C-alpha cells in the first residue's frame, strides 16, 4: 500500500505518519504542501520525500492519500486525488460548506475511489464500549445526551521552537470556515448519529466570543442542541474554554441518559497526572489507546479492498450540514430544521 500525505496544515498529519508507519506493508511515498516552509520542516522531521507539488506527488500513483490541508482547501486536493485514482482519507471537518462536501462525494464516486472522513473518535475504545452498551439496549431508549468537546485555542498548535508553519488558520474564518462550531461540533455530532443510529432533524445554537474575543475573528464559545429523528436530544459544548494552563488540551465527554439510567464517557480520561517542577503546573499524560490508529487501519483496509469505509463521505456531509445549520441558528436565534 503506497500512501501520500497532502498538506501538513492540520497538526493531525504528524500523528498519521506514526499511524501509517505502525501498519505493516504500508509505504509513505512522501508529502506535498503548498506551504514550502511546512513541507521542508516535516519532510526533514520525518525523513519523508518532499514533492514539489500535489500533482508531482500524485504522479507517483499512490494507492491512497490523506488530506490534511486547511478546512476550506479540502475540495481542490480531493479533486486532484480522485482524478489520480487515489483513495482519500480527508481530515475533519470534511468541508466548510455543504456544497463542497457534496462535490467531494460526487468526484470520488465518479472516479471510483473511496472517500473517508477522519472521525477517529468512532475508534476510541471507551466510545466503542458505550456504543455497545446502547446497542445492547441496557441503557434503554436514550432520552438525551449532555456532551462536550472542549479545547484550548487551537492557535496554540504552533509549538515553541518551530519555524512559522502557518498553522494559525484555525482561527481564520476564510480558511477554517468558522471557529468552535466548525472545529468541535462534528466529532460529537458524528458519534451521536452513529451511536443512536438516527439522523439529526433540528439544530439550535448559541455562540459567543468571550474567550480570546479581542484576538480572533471567529466564535470561541458555543452550545449546540441537536434533536434526532428518534426524539433523542443532545447538547454539545464546543467551546475553546480550556485555558492554555489547563492540564491537557481539552477532551470529549458524553453523558447519555436513558430510560434505564446513565452512562458517562470521558474519552480522554485515561491519564496519569504529572506534577513537574519545570512545567510549573500539573499535566495529564494520556495512556489510553490512540483512536487514530484504528481509523487509519480501517481506511487502508477499505482502500485495499476497494470497499466503502466504516465512515464515509456522507458522514462528513451530514456533519457539515449540522454545522451549517448551527451557524444559521446562531444568526437567526431560531432552531433550524434539517
Amino acid at each position, binding site marked *: 500500500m503506497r500512501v501520500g500525505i497532502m498538506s501538513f496544515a492540520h497538526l493531525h498529519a504528524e500523528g498519521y505518519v506514526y499511524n501509517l508507519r505502525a501498519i505493516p506493508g504500508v509505504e509513505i511515498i512522501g508529502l506535498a504542501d503548498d506551504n514550502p516552509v511546512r513541507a521542508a520542516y516535516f519532510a526533514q522531521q520525518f525523513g519523508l520525500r518532499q514533492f514539489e507539488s500535489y500533482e508531482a506527488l500524485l504522479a507517483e500513483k499512490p494507492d491512497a492519500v490523506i488530506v490534511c490541508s486547511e478546512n476550506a482547501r479540502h475540495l481542490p486536493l480531493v479533486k486532484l486525488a480522485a482524478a489520480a485514482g487515489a483513495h482519500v482519507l480527508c481530515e475533519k471537518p470534511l468541508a466548510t460548506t455543504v456544497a463542497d462536501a457534496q462535490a467531494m462525494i460526487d468526484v470520488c464516486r465518479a472516479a471510483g475511489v473511496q472517500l473517508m472522513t477522519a472521525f477517529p473518535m468512532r475508534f476510541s475504545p471507551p466510545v466503542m464500549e458505550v456504543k455497545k452498551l446502547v446497542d445492547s439496549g441496557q441503557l434503554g431508549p436514550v432520552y438525551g445526551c*449532555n456532551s462536550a468537546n472542549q479545547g484550548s485555542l487551537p492557535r496554540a498548535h504552533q509549538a515553541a521552537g518551530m519555524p512559522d508553519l502557518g498553522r494559525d488558520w484555525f482561527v481564520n474564518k476564510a480558511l477554517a470556515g468558522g471557529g468552535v462550531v466548525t472545529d468541535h461540533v462534528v466529532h460529537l455530532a458524528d458519534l451521536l448519529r452513529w451511536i443512536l443510529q438516527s439522523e439529526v432533524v433540528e439544530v439550535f445554537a448559541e455562540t459567543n466570543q468571550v474567550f480570546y474575543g479581542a484576538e480572533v475573528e471567529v466564535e470561541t464559545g458555543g*452550545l449546540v442542541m441537536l434533536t434526532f429523528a428518534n426524539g433523542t436530544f443532545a447538547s454539545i459544548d464546543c467551546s475553546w*474554554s480550556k485555558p492554555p494552563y489547563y492540564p491537557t488540551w481539552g477532551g470529549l465527554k458524553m*453523558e447519555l441518559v436513558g430510560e*434505564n439510567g*446513565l452512562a458517562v464517557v470521558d474519552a480522554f480520561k485515561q491519564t496519569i497526572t504529572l506534577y513537574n517542577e519545570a512545567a510549573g503546573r500539573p499535566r495529564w499524560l494520556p495512556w489510553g489507546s490512540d483512536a487514530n490508529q484504528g481509523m487509519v487501519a480501517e481506511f487502508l483496509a477499505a482502500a485495499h479492498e476497494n470497499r466503502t469505509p466504516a465512515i464515509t463521505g456522507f458522514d462528513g456531509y451530514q456533519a457539515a450540514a449540522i454545522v451549517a445549520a448551527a451557524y444559521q441558528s446562531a444568526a437567526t*436565534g*431560531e*432552531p433550524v430544521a434539517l
Partner: protein
Amino acid sequence: MRVGIVGAGFMAQTHAAAWVKTPAEIAGIHSIDRESAKRLAGAYDTRTFESVAALLRDVDVLDICAPTHLHHEMTLQAAAAGKDVVCEKPLGRTLDQAREMIAACDKAGVKLLVGHVVRFFPQYALAKEAVDRGDVGKVGVVRLTRCSFQPRGTGGWFMDSEKSGGMMLDLMIHDFDYARWVAGEVESVFTRQVRSRHPDAPGDYALAILRHTNGAISNVEGGWAYPPPLFRTALEIAGDKGLIEHPAGSSDPLEVYVQASGSGERPSVAAPSSPTTESPYDLEIRHFYDVLTGAVTTPRVTAADGLVALKIAFAAIESAQTGKRVSLKEFA
C-alpha cells in the same frame, strides 16, 4: 423568634434540624400528614397544630415546607397575620401566585425569603465568590448539572405536575437561579425535555441553553431519570481569564461501599451530601435567621430573585413545549 413549620417531610425535617441550631424556637408544626407532624414535633420537643391559621397565631415566622402549589395560599395567610415567611423554592406554582405573594408581603410589611439553597452550598458559594473577585475574568460558558432519581414526596406530589410544576420548575430552577447569579440576567432559553413530548415517559430529562444579556451562555442539565440512589451535580464556569471546574463526584470526601441489607427501599427525595460541620441547609436557615432579626440587611437570595428564577423556568417549559427559543421579555 418563634418559628412555625408547615410540612413534615424531607424538607421540613431538614429545616427543623437547621432551626434548632439557631437561637430561634421551633414553636410548632402543621402538616396534613398528622403522624409525620407528630413525629417531627416529638423530635424537637414542640407541638403540632391542626391548621396553618392556628399555627400562625402562635409564631413570628412561618416556614413553608409544603408542596409548591400550597405556597401561595399559606404565604397570603401569613402576610395577613403580619408574620414573616420563609418559603421553599420554587416561590410559587405560577408567576401570578409568586407576584401576589411578593405584593402581599410588601403590603403587610413582612419579610419573604425563598429557599434557593444552592446559593448556600459551599462549593457553589465559593465559585460565585471567585467569579465576583474576577478570578475567571468575564464569564463565557457555564455548565450546570443536577440529576437524580424520581422523588416521591408525601402522596407522590413531586410527580404531580399540577402540584410541583414538574422537573424543570422543581429541580432545574436551582441551576437557573445559580446561572443567573454567576453570569447575570437571562435573555432567552431554549430547551428540550422528555416529558414535554412524551408525558408518560418513565423518567424525565431536560437540557436547556440559556443566553445571558452580557453574552455568556449556559448549559443546564436536569433529570429525574437516574437509578436510585444516584444524585449527581456538576458545576463549571469558564471565563476569559480562568476556569472553575467541579465535576460530579469530584470532591466527595467519603465513599462507602457496603453490602446491602434490610429492605433496600429507596429514599423519598434525593439530596446531595458532602459532610461539612454546617450543612448548606444550616447555613441557609442561619442566614435567614440573621435576615429576620435584622442582623443582616440584604438577603443572599430575595423573593425577587425567586420570581426571576420562576420566569426562567416557565420560559424553559414553554420552549420545551413550543420548540422555540423563548425570550424572558415575554415574562416581564
